[in-house]
């Protein structure tokens, strides 16, 4: 059987939204985004899609299935990985799959979906999602499935029944090998994801996502591990001292004098 790659991709609110777009509702427990902040595919997950496509570029009979869990989806958003070149899209869609800070249920559902897909050789996912920044769902999936994992990588290659990945370190990288099936998470150092071309966009319009509910997957909600007790905008304690001058150069000179006077430099 040709290699089958599953990419885990999460729909998130645009991470480039300015800090001013965020607020907290009256309960103090729910983060609200004001204005029309669009949905996107989590940036690191797009890097994972790109990693999968590069593996497929090396041998075109390889297959890529994108799996996403949530309560509601913007179809044109979650279809982007298909437009980039993935073959299939599976949506784990259920009111029960609330996007909370507790990753346990999502992990259980994704692991069950991977089982249900049958032959899966490699699971790729972004290193973290830009909403909770939890960086643990793919690791939890690996632990649940009992598969080896390589975390935060900048290059992924498959040869035979082995995955070889470059794990990002502060001063370089490690080349790490694991037997398939395995889970590998991908970081932005991999490089920019490709843009969907017109053919891909047209093809993605014809792809109907497979939708599975919690009941389809036979999963039930585990006892919760984490609860968001409160959310708040970070307190702004900084009083900015704006240095002004006759012109920009003068302001620069005055800044140097002020910092020196404050014994900072």
């Amino acid at each position, binding site marked *: 059987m040709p290699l089958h790659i599953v990419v885990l991709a999460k729909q998130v609110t645009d991470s480039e939204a300015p800090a001013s777009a965020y607020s907290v509702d009256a309960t103090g427990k729910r983060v609200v985004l004001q204005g029309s902040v669009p949905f996107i595919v989590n940036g690191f997950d797009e890097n994972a899609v790109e990693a999968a496509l590069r593996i497929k570029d090396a041998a075109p009979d390889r297959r890529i299935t994108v799996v996403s869990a949530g309560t509601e989806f913007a179809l044109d958003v979650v279809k982007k990985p298909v437009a980039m070149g993935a073959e299939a899209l599976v949506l784990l869609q259920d009111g029960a799959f609330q996007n909370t800070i507790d990753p346990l249920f999502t992990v259980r559902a994704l692991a069950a979906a991977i089982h249900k897909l049958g032959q899966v050789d490699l699971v790729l996912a972004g290193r973290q999602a830009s909403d*909770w920044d939890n960086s643990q769902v793919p690791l939890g999936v690996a632990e649940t499935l009992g598969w080896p994992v390589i975390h935060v990588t900048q290059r992924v290659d498959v040869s035979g029944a082995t995955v070889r990945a470059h794990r990002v370190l502060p001063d370089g990288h490690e080349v790490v*090998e694991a037997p398939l099936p395995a889970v590998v998470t991908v970081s932005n150092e991999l490089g920019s994801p490709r843009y969907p071309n017109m053919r891909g966009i047209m093809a993605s319009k014809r792809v109907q996502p497979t939708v599975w509910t919690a009941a389809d997957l036979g999963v039930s909600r585990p006892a919760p591990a984490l609860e968001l007790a409160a959310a708040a905008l970070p307190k702004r304690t900084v009083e900015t001292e704006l240095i002004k001058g006759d012109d920009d150069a003068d302001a620069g000179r005055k800044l140097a004098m002020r910092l020196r006077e404050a014994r900072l430099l």
Partner: protein
Amino acid sequence: MTDSNAQGVLVVGEIEHGAPSAATLELLAAGRALLRKLPGEHLSAVLAGERAADAAARAIAAGVDIVYTIEADADVASHPDALVAAGLEAAKAASPRIVLGPRTVLGREVLPRLAFRLGTALAQDCTALDLDDQRRLTVTRPIYGGAIQATVTCLSTPSVAAVRPKAYDAEVADSGRAGTVVPLTLDLASTVRARLVERVTRPVEGKRLEDARVIVSGGRGLGGPEPFKKLEELAGLLHGTVGASRAAVDAGWVPAAMQVGLTGKTVTPDVYIAVGISGASQHMAGCGSAKTIVAINKDPNATIFKHAHYGVAGDWQKVLPAFMDQLHELLR
């Protein structure tokens, strides 16, 4: 998941040169602070690696009551698979109510995996820890790239938390303290499934961003790679090092290793000088803990001025040369 016999705090530590790493020592202090609300309970730690016995003695001096040691080659013990196994073995022996570890390059993989092995999920990237009135671990942590500050309650026993390095200060060691060393027998090498083939290190020029007392960072506003030479010059003058925002890295002006931010490095210098950086929350997540932030930006409404202690709203091409000339004078 609840275990009423669970007690105490277990720190999953890291060894560097035969001693607990700096981030480990900070967590031992964090553990001791929590135990003030848990009278009679113990602080334990697991230390796996080379010269684990030496490291254990240092850990006891730093306030640990019981150290679980596993002797192993440094190459094996620095493998996430091995440290997950070591943490699990120590958790079995200690049955702690709370497990803590540093969110380092190693810890960012080890702690989530250890949490799942223990049947729970991780409180990630904590900047503060406390116990609520039901003695449940409650943590403070940034979410949405630092745009929101969350308080998270851990509902499971054990509760597992990854703590951001430098969130706590290490305590002064007291070599007169007593503690127990419990060697665990575990063949760590046999736990490794993702095999290390080779390590490729790139020589880092100058000081590491993580260690620098002064950082001069450039962003999109610089307009290209050339101005970074000017920043190098300023950093040299201040014995500091140069960083960059994601925009500058994405544009290909500087290598990714220089990136400060959520997806780059988290830095805590005394002085952080941001030049042509707008101050997006994902950038501030990496430098917001700097003691003093200085911003130079053309746009007086840039978000960076909400975080900066000192700022000049002006064109860096005019501000910076004059700033540097004046500094030359002052530092002479």
